[in-house]
């Protein structure tokens, strides 16, 4: 029986992928989670579908030299899906290095040294490992670029290490875009910088937006990510198998199927304006400003706003430079892999549905 190790199962992407594997295979799952022994009950309350005798929880500490030393009999692991990461755009340099780069290197090393029967190693990265490069981004190794934040840089470094220093692993690389909703219904479990920005706009706390109206914004559902991660993990890359199949996949819609920043703001305000509370407050649409102007705002935030604005802006600011970069992401490998299952999504409709839920729940504050 296959044995699949998934890191980051206490997080959004890891849990969604674990559920996918559990539902669609008979494999046994190994889920290393920080403090698993004490947290198992609460994790199962959060993810009740993971309550299965096929699931084995174990502790791991990324700070340890051997973080996966708690995994029983690693020689029988057939698949690893490495989802664990700190995905905050405003992550500090030290944490990005510790978790996203060095933590990944330890997982790569574990796979090389202790998992001789490994058929597949999937590393989950981000399309923004492409940094501030403009134009078409291929499903291929990426050259080093300037980066908007340490998150992007640390993910690029881990990617590069996997493809060079650990190239003998049966690796695949999945770069995901920004998750706006769990699925096409617009429901959301996790919130990120996009949700925070929309919240600031809704509450009238942000009348300036960095970026150009024409810049595409790449949003996907968590379902699209999990679907792709699962499909990629099923490619057998062990010796004698399909080694020639593509190794890098973009979970991202192309520019032509994505919203521009201007369209996103317009749709957001169309949704906001249907809400009586918002409408009464007469919040005007924000102004687009250049990088320097937004830097003045974000760097001088202590003189412009209190803790609410400061906290929210700090989550948006590290991503701001990306909103000036016109890029497109190739996704032919993912399209070929998923075939007819590749999601055909109306980006505007997905955003509107998500906004309806965000507004109704006041960004998750109302049940």
């Amino acid at each position, binding site marked *: 029986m296959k044995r699949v190790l998934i890191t980051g199962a206490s997080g959004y992407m890891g849990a969604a992928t674990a559920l996918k594997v559990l539902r669609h295979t008979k494999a046994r799952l190994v889920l290393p989670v920080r403090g698993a022994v004490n947290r198992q009950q609460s994790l199962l309350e959060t993810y009740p579908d993971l309550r299965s005798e096929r699931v084995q929880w174990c502790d791991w500490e990324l700070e340890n030299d051997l973080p996966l030393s708690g995994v029983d009999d690693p020689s029988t692991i057939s698949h690893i899906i490495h989802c664990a990461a700190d995905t905050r755009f405003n992550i500090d340099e030290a944490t990005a290095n510790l978790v996203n780069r060095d933590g990944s290197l330890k997982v790569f090393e574990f796979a090389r040294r202790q998992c001789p029967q490994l058929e597949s190693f999937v590393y989950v990265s981000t399309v923004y490992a492409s940094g501030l490069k403009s134009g078409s981004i291929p499903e291929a190794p990426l050259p080093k670029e300037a980066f908007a934040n340490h998150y992007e840089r640390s993910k690029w470094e881990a990617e590069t290490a996997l493809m060079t220093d650990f190239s003998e692993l049966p690796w695949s690389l999945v770069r995901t875009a920004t998750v706006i909703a769990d699925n096409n219904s617009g429901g959301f479990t996790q919130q990120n910088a996009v949700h925070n920005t929309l919240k*600031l706009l809704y*509450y*009238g*706390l*942000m*009348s*300036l937006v960095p970026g150009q109206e024409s810049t595409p914004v790449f949003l996907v559902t968590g379902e699209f990510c999990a679907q792709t991660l699962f499909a990629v993990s099923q490619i057998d890359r062990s010796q004698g198998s399909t080694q020639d199949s593509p190794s890098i996949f973009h979970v991202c819609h192309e520019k032509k199927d994505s919203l521009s920043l201007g369209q996103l703001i317009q749709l957001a305000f169309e949704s906001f304006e249907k809400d009586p509370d918002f409408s*009464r*407050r*007469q*919040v*005007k*649409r*924000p*102004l687009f*400003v*250049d990088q*320097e*102007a937004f830097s*003045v*705002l974000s760097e*001088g935030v*202590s*003189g*412009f*706003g*209190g803790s*609410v*604005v400061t906290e929210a802006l700090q989550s948006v600011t590290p991503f701001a430079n990306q909103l000036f970069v016109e890029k497109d992401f190739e996704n032919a490998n993912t399209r070929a892999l998923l075939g007819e299952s590749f999601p055909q999504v109306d980006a505007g409709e997905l955003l509107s549905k998500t906004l309806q839920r965000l507004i109704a729940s006041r960004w998750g504050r109302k049940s």
Partner: protein
Amino acid sequence: MTTSQNVYIDNLSYSLGDEVHSVESAVALGRTLTGAEAFTDAGFRQHWVAGVNTTAYDLAKQSVTQIADRLQDTGTIIYSTCLTLNGNLGRQTDFESTRDVKHHLEYPGSHLQADFELKQANVVGLNQQACTSVLGSMRVAHALLNTEEELQQILCVSADRFPENALYEQAYNLISDGACAFTVSRKESGFRLLSTAALTNGAMCRASDDESVGHYFSYTNQVIVDCLKKAKISPKEIQWVVPQNTNRKAWIILSRIFGLPMERIFLESLPEVAHIISSDNIVNLKKLTDTGKLQSGDKILLTMAGYGLNWQAVLLERV
């Protein structure tokens, strides 16, 4: 509103509170919520506080005294305050002992008319426009001069002092007590008024400081666009912007939005006098005039934002 009859702003004067305190002193005295570093970073260096026995009306008189020899044609006084409590000289204790509301009706505009013997002048009070009141008084004066033929000159006065023990900080800006005065007349001197614009978002009248800041840029942009549109000029045709004395970084941002170099944003009095509620524009305009940099035909944009929430802009042209 494009000016149908030319009216002119002139005879600018201002006065400040009795005591000057450094930013550090203001913070140490507990007059602020924000720390000294943030104020300094925003451009503030010191602020002015009226003495215990100095009223807002005393500050108004000091401003008017400076131009008293040019008030003989005054037919109307527009007396504005940001804080409504500065629009009454009656004492609360007198009301409490007599229960007579006339102690809430002792208007400083009336006192001013009497004290300066402006016997032919009537009084208009204006006290619900917060920091934008001075520009509101220009707008009202312009309207009156266009509708009342016999009216030759209007005296505009704005005066505020914060009550004892008040925080001298609003929306992360350091406040000063002070007053200003100027005339609006048909006499061709000073500055010709080209256009005015005003916006109010009443739903945000209880806005938090964060919400006020959050609305600041989009509404300031809108009121400026409205003002320039009425005068049929583009931002590039403006020689000077004379804002209120709030965080100078706000204008670093706005200047980029409007494509105006920061050198044309005249905020010279910000470090020295801080945010005098509703008199900053006049202080800065007077200082700009005193530099000798202004040339005939220069277009000068005055902007203000205030609680209420209110935004106003006035476009002037140097005579």
